[in-house]
């Protein structure tokens, strides 16, 4: 990603090659991002507008005045976009939310791992609670989607239940000896070659920037 951001002009192609190599080696799921039509529609619009619309005309394609400089700029921008998309989607595919929470805990968000765990475990009971609230409202003759006041009351009821549950969960955690001050951040996976790979990538980036 750093290579895609830092390498200017046609050297974006090198960044794309690096991102594609890393994706093939470590996170092939990242290629799924390229099947998203939105990315290609935007790239097509960018290329068409830069070639025929925004760029200064230098030649003509049939009856249409075209800008080869604009086309070149569009291709370079698209290469950069694909490289960044591959890198970012790869990161998202390989790093789980739990590991992300662990990383964030290490930079000052203490207790985030515990909080995410509690939130994840609360989802089914909250969904059940919301459904019961809506069912109760309907059985009492109201349809929340047609009457805004009922929707507000249903929201207040669901939130009240959720906050009361939070008090119970907090009490249970404290009884079990949990304390945010004493909690350890979620463990992170370390590979044998992580350091080596990091150094190799830093050296590659430096070589790409300096040559």
């Amino acid at each position: 990603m750093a290579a895609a951001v830092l390498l200017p002009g046609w050297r974006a192609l090198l960044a794309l090659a690096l991102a594609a190599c890393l994706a093939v080696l470590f996170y092939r799921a990242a290629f799924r991002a390229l099947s998203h039509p939105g990315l290609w529609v935007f790239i097509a619009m960018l290329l068409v507008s830069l070639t025929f619309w925004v760029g200064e005309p230098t030649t003509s394609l049939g009856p249409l005045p075209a800008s080869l400089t604009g086309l070149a700029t569009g291709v370079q921008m698209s290469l950069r976009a694909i490289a960044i998309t591959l890198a970012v989607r790869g990161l998202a595919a390989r790093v789980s939310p739990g590991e992300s929470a662990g990383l964030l805990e290490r930079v000052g968000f203490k207790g985030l791992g515990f909080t995410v765990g509690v939130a994840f475990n609360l989802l089914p009971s909250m969904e059940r609670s919301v459904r019961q609230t809506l069912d109760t409202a309907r059985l009492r003759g109201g349809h929340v989607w047609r009457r805004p006041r009922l929707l507000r009351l249903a929201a207040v009821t669901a939130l009240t239940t959720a906050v009361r549950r939070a008090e119970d969960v907090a009490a249970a955690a404290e009884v079990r000896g949990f304390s945010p001050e004493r909690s350890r951040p979620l463990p992170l996976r370390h590979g044998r070659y992580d350091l080596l790979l990091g150094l190799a990538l830093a050296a590659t980036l430096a070589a790409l920037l300096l040559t």
Partner: protein
Amino acid sequence: MRFSTKDLVTIAVFGALWGSVEMTLGAWLHAANVPFSGLLLSGVGVSIALTGYVFVPRAGAVLMISLVAALLKAFSVGGVVLEPMIAIVMEGLLAELGLFAGGRRRTVLPFLLAGALAVSWAFVQPFFTQGVLFGEGVVEIYARTVQKAADLLGFDATMVVAILVVIVLAHVVVGLCAGGVAIGLGRQLTRRLRAPASAGAPDG
């Protein structure tokens, strides 16, 4: 940022609520390509986060709620989750900024300020994402496209600016409403929580 166990669990509750709205309503709205879906989701999400701030009135609480919601969004069934995750965290950050600028009091002003700032991100988000992906040149392309379109259609380019201003104002108004809803909902919840548990809704 130091929170007690109860603070963390309350943050989890409101983060789970925002996350579940994003995972269900958000996935559906994005799949259906509903216009201004980002604005609607921001409004709902920010009002949930700011309601959470009523119960955990400490610096960083709204940011933590947004981080929890963003991490839950990673489990969403929708294909594209990274952009919404960035949007959720940025909205949390801007809401914190608004609360800080408003003096972190539990009065209406900081809530309105936080809501307006946070929801305005829904307008900036596409430009930010495209700027990161395609480089800052994309902004110049937008500006020149707008100028050329205005010339071609024979209207003043200032009209485009006026349309953009109206859209920004719509975001600010939705943000103000989100802040207002949050403080109203927070007060109502506080009253309900003081009442005995049997007076509430059926426990799930």
